[in-house]
């Protein structure tokens, strides 16, 4: 074991319902300053519920301890490196939290008068402008709530544009290395998925697309750099081919951390892309959300963007609902405003030069990890990679150890695992994205842990196969959970 982790006391804690007993309370309400209303009298007896059965009753200190104990069972970026490929788990600067929690922003009601919302609108306008510049696109909507929601928005836009030209077409081409959200979004947009095979080096080839792009194809949905971390070398020629044949180029911006300040999707032929503010722009993942998935488009798609659109009028910013060609609304109100605030603060802290420098640092960290691990794990591609590197478990599989086992063993060394078994085109994939925010010291510890595990695989494979050994719970039986789903607490029988 290296120096990153050792065992410590971890408190046990029952579920809230098991802590609960009648009469305990953690709240105070001010006295009512109007006469009480009798619920049964004003609502009708049948509309009023009896008590909420089994709802918790706990004291204030119990609430605090309960959730603090739970917190101590989590790994987090605040505790260390999170080498999850394609997830871009970077440090979340706390100034972003501080400004997002300003009262004037936090308590702004979405329907308060525009004249009293100019601060919010200014923030949104500044973010739209910055994202347009970073991506090289003409217009941005901030409405989508997450990356997959952005994908759906982008595909709806494509469908609306093509339908306005008379034929929405039938298919969306998706490379076999794509995230699962891509094909799922395609189906929701009423299109059929057609897989594009990657070549041996992990890229799409122009010749393959020459054969595939016909008048049934609405768009190609590409992640660039792709999920192997490889930049699609023929992207400009692919874009030209699509455009020539009346199709569009959609880019999944999940891997934008490899490009910010270096290359702009708008400049290499992309018509529409979504970004993940919770990846590239450092907003906290929060254990799985909230995210935000702005969509940036070229001018031809702008009339179709969701309502409302932010517009500049003489007396300030306003929301424009009069957009006859719009696809409509994707979400209530204007999107995840609180996430936008954090992303803008991040962009302001970096500036143009800082974003470029962060990108180059991310590439450097990934190249360094790849170089140092290449003699222990099998690289997935000989091609140069950018912000992430992918290995296969081919060498370890000979000892009966798979990528999922190595990932679990990494926990014992004090790290969150890399992305396991993805992309699907690599057998037994280990997908590693260190991001720019890790120091050489943390990277060296990670490499050391991976090297130790590679040695353990040869000397004591059972140790790795049964990992983790030092976590609060040992390996969790996911098959049991799915076979017999228990998705809510129920009181024990007889109670």
């Amino acid at each position, binding site marked *: 074991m290296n120096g990153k982790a050792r065992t410590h006391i971890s408190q046990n804690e029952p579920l*809230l319902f098991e802590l609960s007993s009648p009469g305990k*309370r953690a*709240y105070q*309400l001010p006295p009512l300053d*109007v006469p009480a209303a009798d619920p049964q009298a004003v*609502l009708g007896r049948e509309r009023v*519920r009896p*008590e*909420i059965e089994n*709802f*918790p009753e706990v004291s204030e200190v119990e*609430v*605090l301890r309960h959730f603090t104990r739970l917190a101590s*069972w*989590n790994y*987090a*970026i*605040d505790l260390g490196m999170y080498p999850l490929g394609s997830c871009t788990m970077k440090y979340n600067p706390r100034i972003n939290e501080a400004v997002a*929690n300003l009262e004037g922003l936090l308590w*702004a*009601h979405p329907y308060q*008068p525009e004249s009293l919302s*100019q*601060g919010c609108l200014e923030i949104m306008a500044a973010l739209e402008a910055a994202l347009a510049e970073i991506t090289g696109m003409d217009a941005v909507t901030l409405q989508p709530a*997450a990356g*997959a929601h952005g994908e759906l928005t982008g595909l709806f836009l494509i*469908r609306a544009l093509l339908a306005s030209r008379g034929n929405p077409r039938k298919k969306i081409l998706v490379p076999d290395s794509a*995230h699962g959200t891509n*094909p*799922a979004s395609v189906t929701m947009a009423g299109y059929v998925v057609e897989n594009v095979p990657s070549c041996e080096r992990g890229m799409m080839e122009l010749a393959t697309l020459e054969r595939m792009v016909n008048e049934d194809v609405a768009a190609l949905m590409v992640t660039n750099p792709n999920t192997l971390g490889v*930049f699609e070398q023929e992207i400009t020629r692919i874009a030209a081919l699509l455009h020539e044949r009346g199709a569009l180029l959609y880019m999944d911006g999940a891997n934008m951390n490899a490009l910010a300040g270096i*290359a*702009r999707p708008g*400049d*290499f032929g992309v018509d529409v892309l979504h970004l993940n503010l919770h990846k590239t722009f450092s907003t*906290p*993942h*929060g*254990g799985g*959300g*909230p*995210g935000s998935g702005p969509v940036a488009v070229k001018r031809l798609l702008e009339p179709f963007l969701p309502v409302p659109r932010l517009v500049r009028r003489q007396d300030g910013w306003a929301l424009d609902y009069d957009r006859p060609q719009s*696809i*409509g609304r994707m*979400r209530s*109100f204007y999107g*995840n405003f*609180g996430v936008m605030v954090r992303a803008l603060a991040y962009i302001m802290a970096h*500036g*143009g030069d800082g974003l470029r420098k962060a990108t*180059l640092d991310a590439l450097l960290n990934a190249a360094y990890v790849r170089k140092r691990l290449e003699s222990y794990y099998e690289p997935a591609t000989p091609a140069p990679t*950018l912000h992430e590197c992918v290995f296969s478990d081919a060498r370890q599989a000979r000892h009966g150890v798979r990528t999922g086992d190595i990932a679990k063993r990494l*926990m014992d060394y004090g790290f969150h*695992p890399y992305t396991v078994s993805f992309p699907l085109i690599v057998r037994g994939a280990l997908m590693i994205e260190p991001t720019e925010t890790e120091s050489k010291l943390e990277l060296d510890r990670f490499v050391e842990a991976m090297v130790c595990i590679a040695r353990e695989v040869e000397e004591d494979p059972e140790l790795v196969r049964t990992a983790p050994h030092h*976590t609060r719970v040992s390996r*969790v*039986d*996911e098959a049991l959970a*799915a076979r017999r789903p228990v*998705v809510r607490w129920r009181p024990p029988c007889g109670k």
Partner: protein
Amino acid sequence: MLAALGLSCLEDLVAHLPPEVLLRRPLQLPPGKSEYEIAAWFRAQAEKNASGYACFLGAGAYRHYRPVLVDVIASRGEFLTSYTPYQAEISQGTLTAIFEFQSMICQLTGMEVANASMYDGSTAAAEAALMAARITGRRGLVTARTLHPEYRQVLRTYARFAQLPVAEIAYEPDSGGLDLADLETHVNEETAAVLVQSPNFFGIVEDVPAAAEIAHRRGALLIVVFTEAVALGLLAPPVEADIVAGELQSFAIPPNYGGPYVGVIATREQHIRQIPGRLVGETRDTQGRRAYCLTLATREQHIRREKATSNICTNQALVALMATVFMTVYGKQGLRELAEQNLAKAHYLANRVQRRFSGPFFNEFVVVCQSRPEAVNEALLAKRIIGGLPLGRFYRELDGCMLLCVTEMNRREEMDVVAEALSS
């Protein structure tokens, strides 16, 4: 590090990119700023917004007191900066909290299973409609006109691309509740689901059992939508529904100019494999200890790809945690007492103005204004009060009316000022 890679400068890392894609100029963004400058800029923006105003706006975004423990807990780095809990062994904190969230949503709604959250109420309602279409194999959607107008717009967008026709049901002009006779005529053998919001957009508590009866008689599912979760502390749970889709913003989530909020979908056990989004389930570790993990992933995009129940990936875990802490702080007694305060305060003001509808209401109601609603609001702004939502924008026939919301945050003196402005 560069030396270890045999490189001489950082630019060498991108030397292999096609030359035509490289950006040959700096990004046109202002230079990087210090923490102090960033804080000052955002403070200046916050000051341009309303501050120090009393507010009577609801309509899907509610102002409720946020107990201090909510931010104390939700700002802990172990929750704030963790990833989606795919790796169960080091994510038991988030997983346990989500399991508790799912359990409490079931207790509140009377449903048997709840997912780990949706983006918000509007997308939860739209996804619930798609879910109903999958379950029934039918295509028609029928929605009350008193479903939040923006939720209906989202529903229409999703439905249009899924090629599901949407019909709208009138409200009774007197009570403001769903017109059950109109519902009867629109539900048929093609109907996948009926969507009813309760309390509805006008604040009226709907007759959910009657709507359920009409939907079920023709084999359609009933989706009950809620935007004001505090009402669940007092109102009979919609146990007649097949799917409940709601917004939990009222549970300690600040209005935040519209988001992030947190939606949820709850349903009956039999539909568990059609529910979109993440689910946490109980299981054991190799030593037999209780543990939690994400489960039934075979519904989800990362396994099923184009055959998934939905494309949803990120949800709203941190916001769901805030709602969980809120539900825990208030608990069984507190949530009811909070709901009763809302009811009492709303009725105090409603009794002093001319209500447009006669149906029973919770904490929102429609008022007939004696002068233009915009003029009333102008007059109130001068007294540092943000009035109600003029309804003409969403319902042309209610042009002279506004929707008022009263919560425990509104004081009696403010209400007296509003009552006076509305009657002049």
